[in-house]
């Protein structure tokens, strides 16, 4: 059955595509305009006539963008790693092991999934402040390392691994931990990767908690960094340099997305919530 697609559909989709891409185009293009050229425009120009790298140099020298960037990388790596350790262990306990109170504990965990972060952030702020952990990586990381939802996702996947494998491993005298590491994780790799990617996106973009818990620029993450740049940034309203910073901040996730496109979209379809 051959059917001609209505060209109006293509036009509609293209229009939305332009609407999505335009801000990205604008940010990149402005980042290459010189300060004087940009400010001389009364009517905004859609093209760069004289591209320059100067704004990128500015972004790394006039403001501590490098520090924000490094902080975010450190925060993202450690948080994701610890989160994986904590959630994988818990998911393994729930799916594979038997112990008194397991089902009750799992029900309680599921119920905790409904707790909105806005409700708990107040006390967490007070807790972390009173532990003197403001402006430390520990303070940034600790409340972000557990996610009930990821435990749930991993547990569902772990439960699908046939029991026979476990008994075979037990007969061979394999310990539980070794079984988890050598058998379970390799089989469930796609889910582990999904969880990892979702967490990395979440960490890279996190704004609220870092804003509450850091007021020393040395510990700012990129989201707070960009807000700081916007409000006190380059000493003047240097839009091209701000856009260069925005490009630098946006690039890592976009590259990650283009590499792992299918995995990320499948992962978000299963476990995403933004929206």
């Amino acid at each position, binding site marked *: 059955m051959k059917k001609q697609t209505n060209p109006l559909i293509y036009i509609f989709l293209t229009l939305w595509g332009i609407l999505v891409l335009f801000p990205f185009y604008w940010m990149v293009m402005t980042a290459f305009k010189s300060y004087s050229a940009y400010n001389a425009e*009364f009517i905004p120009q859609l093209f760069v006539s004289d591209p320059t790298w100067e704004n990128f140099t500015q972004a790394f020298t006039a403001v501590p963008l490098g520090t924000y960037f490094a902080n975010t990388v450190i925060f993202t790596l450690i948080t994701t790693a610890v989160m994986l350790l904590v959630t994988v262990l818990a998911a393994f306990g729930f799916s594979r092991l038997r*112990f008194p*109170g397991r089902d009750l504990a799992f029900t309680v965990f599921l119920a905790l999934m409904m707790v909105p972060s*806005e409700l708990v952030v*107040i006390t967490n702020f007070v807790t972390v402040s009173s532990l003197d952990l403001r402006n430390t990586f520990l303070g940034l990381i600790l409340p972000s390392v557990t996610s*009930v939802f990821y*435990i749930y996702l991993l547990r569902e996947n772990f439960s699908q691994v046939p029991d026979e494998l476990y008994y075979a491993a037990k007969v061979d005298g394999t310990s539980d931990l070794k079984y988890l590491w050598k058998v379970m994780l390799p089989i469930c790799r796609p889910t582990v990767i999904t969880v990892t990617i979702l967490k990395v996106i979440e960490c890279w973009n996190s704004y609220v908690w870092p804003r509450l818990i850091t007021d020393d620029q040395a510990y700012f993450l990129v989201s707070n960094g960009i807000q700081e740049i*916007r409000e006190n940034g380059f000493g003047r309203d240097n839009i091209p340099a701000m856009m260069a910073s925005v490009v630098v901040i*946006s690039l890592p*996730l976009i590259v990650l997305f283009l590499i792992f496109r299918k995995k990320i979209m499948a992962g978000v379809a299963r476990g995403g919530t933004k929206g």
Partner: protein
Amino acid sequence: MEKNNYKGWLYLLPAVLFLGVFLVYPLIDVFIYSIEEGYNTASGTSFGVGLYNFHYILQDPHFLQALKNTFLLVLVTVPLSTGIALLISLGLSAVKKLRSLFQTVFFLPYVTNTLAVGLVFMLLFRQTPYSPGLFNTLLGLFGIAPVDFITGPYWAKMFTLCFYTVWVVMPFKILVLTGALASVKQDYYNAARIDGTGKLRIFTKITLPMISPSVFYLIITGFIGAFKAYSDAVAIFGTDLNAAGMNTLVGYVYDMLYGNAGGYPSYASAAAVVLFAIVLTITVINLLVSRKHVHYN
């Protein structure tokens, strides 16, 4: 059969500890904070227990403004974004060529930093003494006078916020709806086509009922997400949202806790409890409505 022992708890221990300290305890604590009157952060003491904190925030003009902004944002963006997402997903499922390219492009806003791209939107919509900005230039082509969409009249600021919010939430909705449309069995369409059913009728009688669980899922998560809007507003109007008159409920909570007007965990808690009550009510209503209208297999 495995031994029935307590070793399993060891595996849960890290998760239980973290959840206990950073989720369960704060959850209980926030309700206690919200009813402690005159709580002093420094001394950790309060005058007594009562509803004064709620009374206070319900009279605070900043809170009422935040409440109004949030409700407007929810009422505009949730139907709008779900509707457009449905149109786009229908379009996507009708095309073969370039579909994957479109899907990739449409998903991009999901992986961008809200604060960073918000700055670009601020730039596109704002008006300065030196330039009307791009959006106003565009409006000028249609003979519309320039308006400052960032610091100008309330409706203009609301428009910018809604526009950006829709832009940000679309990827997730398109993704979910495209998946739902792809899973509708082709048999139904074939049968309808043989019967000579019209396109609109196919849509309302087959497609919509079949994807209704996904649509309702999106409406529920959309409501919850929009009620918790905050960083989008910060991205466009800056950190001092009260001054801009564009604060949201979540923003009010954080501002009460910290920042220029901060240092009042009790008021922040009361506001958080109110927010939670609103979200819970709306979700329950949504669930009740969906039970009547959603077609679950």
